[in-house]
């Protein structure tokens, strides 16, 4: 089968077939393409695994300031020897004519036995045809050369001299065709395009990833026979705490855990009978002075349980499955694992089957549907349920057990004062935690940063 190529790719492949190993510069020359076209073409072909690009380094040798001077005038020792060609000369004269290079060149000449010196005169002892380094000096002086084209032994004496030799590192590429490219058939029909080429991403519009998890959880519970109820995020302390048997002096009700609305209280919180019965239950069981003004204080709900308990108090049905889902608030320092505002789901079951094993069964089914099968239940404590359990789920990525939903059966101290006579199963927990597991996030804040890069690139969870 033939393959479609871009015009640039075609030219490069054909040129390499003729001349199997080329630098980009050579390709430019042979294909008449611009340097940028060559660069892109090589990149495309590399991605398709059709060319190999071997990068190597080469050091290029040329002359420095002193080297150039010597190239023009001869090496200092050659100049010395030239002065002595016609017979011995006086030391002082030589010194005058050669200047600063007299010392070093004299030293070298004596060391090599080219000259002999008395206290006043210098004369040639043995005149060499070519001095060490002279050949190389001539070569480099005419043209820069790569190091591999130079006699290293002859270069060595020059390298020792200051500012004599300059070494440049040159990076160069050699492009060759891969084996598959050698045999590939290039389609030559015009009008075809490369349908296998890379194309840019476009940004899709989408629901928020956390919303996807919320929707998924909502639908699971609906299919398990639960109906969704909605309630306010601002609640009186009565429904958020008192109705749930949390005494008014309980630490959870303090400002440092719960958000109270600044100087806002509810006038009407519940029916007179509900207020009387709830306060009686508190006085009898917790033995303290119950204050209705505490119950009137408005808070940002700390759980969605206030919504479900209010619903149950208003609809005393014998058989019911409802859930509520929404934002809850805690006065905490924001960190990678804590938010002040997060989503919670809370569900209740009233009816004949309302027992602990069924409660565990509903949880197990829910976890199974979101793909969590390794779970266990541990006893725990909540002020408004008895017995109370928590689910632990095993997370493979983190390699540990994580606490997810809490659950239990509403205490009679909660249900009786509100006229609820049947046992009520209740369960609930944070949704962000589940979403973090699903999206593999370690920082819960990411959900609320609205970082477009993340929103645009995160894969939708199914």
């Amino acid at each position, binding site marked *: 089968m033939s393959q479609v190529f871009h015009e640039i790719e075609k030219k490069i492949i054909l040129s390499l077939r003729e001349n199997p190993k080329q630098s980009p510069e050579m390709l430019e020359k042979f294909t008449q393409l611009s340097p940028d076209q060559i660069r892109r073409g090589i990149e495309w072909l590399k991605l398709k695994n059709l060319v190999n690009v071997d990068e190597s380094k080469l050091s290029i040798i040329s002359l420095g300031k002193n080297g150039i001077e010597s190239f023009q005038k001869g090496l200092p020792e050659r100049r010395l020897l030239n002065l002595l060609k016609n017979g011995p000369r006086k030391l002082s004269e030589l010194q005058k004519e050669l200047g600063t290079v007299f010392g070093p060149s004299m030293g070298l000449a004596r060391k090599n036995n080219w000259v002999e010196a008395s206290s006043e005169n210098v004369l040639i002892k043995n005149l060499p045809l070519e001095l060490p380094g002279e050949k190389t000096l001539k070569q480099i002086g005419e043209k820069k050369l790569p190091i591999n084209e130079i006699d290293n032994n002859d270069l060595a004496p020059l390298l020792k001299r200051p500012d004599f030799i300059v070494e440049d590192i040159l990076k160069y590429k050699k492009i060759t065709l891969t084996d598959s490219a050698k045999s590939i058939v290039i389609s030559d029909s015009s009008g075809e395009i490369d349908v296998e080429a890379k194309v840019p991403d476009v940004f899709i519009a989408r629901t928020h990833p956390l919303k996807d998890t919320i929707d998924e959880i909502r639908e699971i519970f609906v299919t398990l026979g639960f109906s*969704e109820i909605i309630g306010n995020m601002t609640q009186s302390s009565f429904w958020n705490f008192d109705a749930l048997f949390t005494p008014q002096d309980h630490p959870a009700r303090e400002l440092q855990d719960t958000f109270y609305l*600044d100087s806002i209280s509810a006038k009407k919180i519940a029916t007179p009978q509900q207020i009387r019965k709830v306060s009686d239950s508190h006085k009898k069981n917790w033995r303290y002075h119950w204050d209705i003004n505490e119950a009137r204080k408005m808070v940002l709900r700390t759980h969605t349980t206030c919504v479900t308990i209010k619903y149950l108090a208003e609809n005393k049905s014998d058989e019911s499955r409802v859930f509520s889902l929404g934002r809850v608030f805690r006065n905490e320092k924001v960190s990678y694992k804590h938010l002040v505002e997060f989503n919670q789901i809370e569900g209740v079951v009233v009816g004949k089957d309302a027992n602990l094993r069924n409660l565990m069964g509903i949880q197990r089914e829910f976890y199974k549907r979101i793909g969590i099968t390794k779970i266990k239940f541990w006893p725990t404590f909540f002020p408004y349920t008895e017995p109370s359990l928590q689910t632990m789920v095993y997370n493979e990525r983190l390699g540990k057990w994580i606490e997810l939903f809490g659950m239990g059966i509403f205490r009679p101290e909660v249900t009786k004062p509100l006229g609820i006579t049947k046992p009520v199963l209740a369960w609930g927990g944070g949704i962000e935690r589940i979403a973090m597991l699903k999206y593999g996030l370690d920082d819960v804040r990411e959900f609320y940063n609205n970082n477009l890069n993340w929103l645009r690139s995160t894969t939708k969870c199914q």
Partner: protein
Amino acid sequence: MPVVELSYARIQKLVGKVTKKQISDSLPFLGLDIESEDKDLVRIEYSPNRPDYSTDFGIALGLQGLLGIKTGAVKLKIKKSNKYQISVKSEVSKIRPFVTGIVAKNGNIDNKILEQLIQMQEDLHMGIGRKRTKSSIGIHDLDKISFPLMYTTTSRNTKFIPLKSTQENTISEILEQTDVGKDYGYILSNSTKVPIITDSIGNIISLPPIINAAITTVTTKTKNLFVEVTGINKYDAEDMLSVVATILESAGFTLESVKISGAKNSSPKLDQKKMSVSIFLINQILGLNLNTSKILSSLKKSRLDASSKGKNIICTIPAYRFDIFGPMDLVEEVALGYGIQNLDPTLTSSRTIGQINPVSLQLKSLNQIMIGLGYLEALNSSLTSKRVLYDMTNRDSTKLISVLDSKSQEHTILRDSILPGLLENLSRNIHESYPQKMFETGTVFTINDPISEKISFSSISAHKDANFTEIKSILQSALKIGFGITIETKTTSHPTFEAGHCATVNLNGKSIGVIGKIDSKIVENYKIRVPVVGFEMSLSESIL
């Protein structure tokens, strides 16, 4: 949740015949979470309703039961004694009316036990003591005290040497200068006089609920202890005492009674209480069919005593288990003794039909439409800041709803509008490619006897050609196709929008929102380099 650090080796010694693994496997089934482990040390998180788990003695009692090593209720053996008496003067009635106490003799106190006693005392103070307001404990060296004692009041000028000090101070100084005085002094602030316990030779031994005297300091050399609890009601004080008494007895002390009289006070009984629960309720709630003997053995594993009487189980509950309010608590005790791991989850088919709330359905439908129009869904907090909500957008902040004592500056004000949050989002994405188009639906809050919550819908579009027509088209089409609603726009002015590019969104002649081009100054302040258009409208007043 309180945490206690314990040694496995010590627990093993206390429980008897048990491996370290058995302990770590069993702790969660007592309702205790292992927070971390380091060789022999284990940090255990326990629920505040079980203060007996604040020491290894208490945890060992629980483990013995669960593992079947020792079951049934722990009985307090209190030797009757007339040697130890406290008389209560009526002056304390208006400040801190009740005192109770017990003597514990012939124990060995090593550093580990001393540390745990202090920890237990602190946890009791924080938990059932409600930061010492309801009740508080003092533990003393019995041998430094001359009985009988008197619980009375004194003036704030009275002097004594407080715990951890060598210097005599007035009570006023103690309340003003020591850490505990500063933390808890307010509990006594309603009266000029303060409660004290003095002994028969006139030594002050305690200033409840603040501090003990130095003279009765407990050290590793102490053999005999005197424990007093004061409080605002007798029951809470005795509950607290029962925990301390049970732990001290488990630690090897022998208990002797303290006689208390005067001003409506009486000696503590620390009696077990009886409570009945029906076999039917147990099986109904747990979804099991346990026979009587299984129920009895399960309760005993939870360190309660139980016997059957017809269709009921009669439980005997030690005084320190004041977390047990009624029959439902006993059902849980059966479940714990039976073992939560032995409960098999079941799923019965539902007899109800599930339904998504109509509001959620409408919002989901709107979401789909906005996505179809190329808008990305954003999510912002309802609790935000004055800067984002009002200052950056020039909006009027006179009716803001703020929360008290937020730990985060970014979360102090409840939003009454969604649009400012979206603008803030744009400002944090100026390095990302344009066009940037986002929308959000969510609850907004306004003061209205006390608070009205409405669902709002906002969108923004930012790119070099963004203009009024574009955003109006988006809103108009979304509402028409999605909900069959036709809106109109009427010229208006709004501090967030550019003059001459701003309109109200009207439905049936009533304004339900605002639409337009965001004021260029605001866009500039946010360092956004392209024009921004947007709208916000109430869904509660249109489609919901």
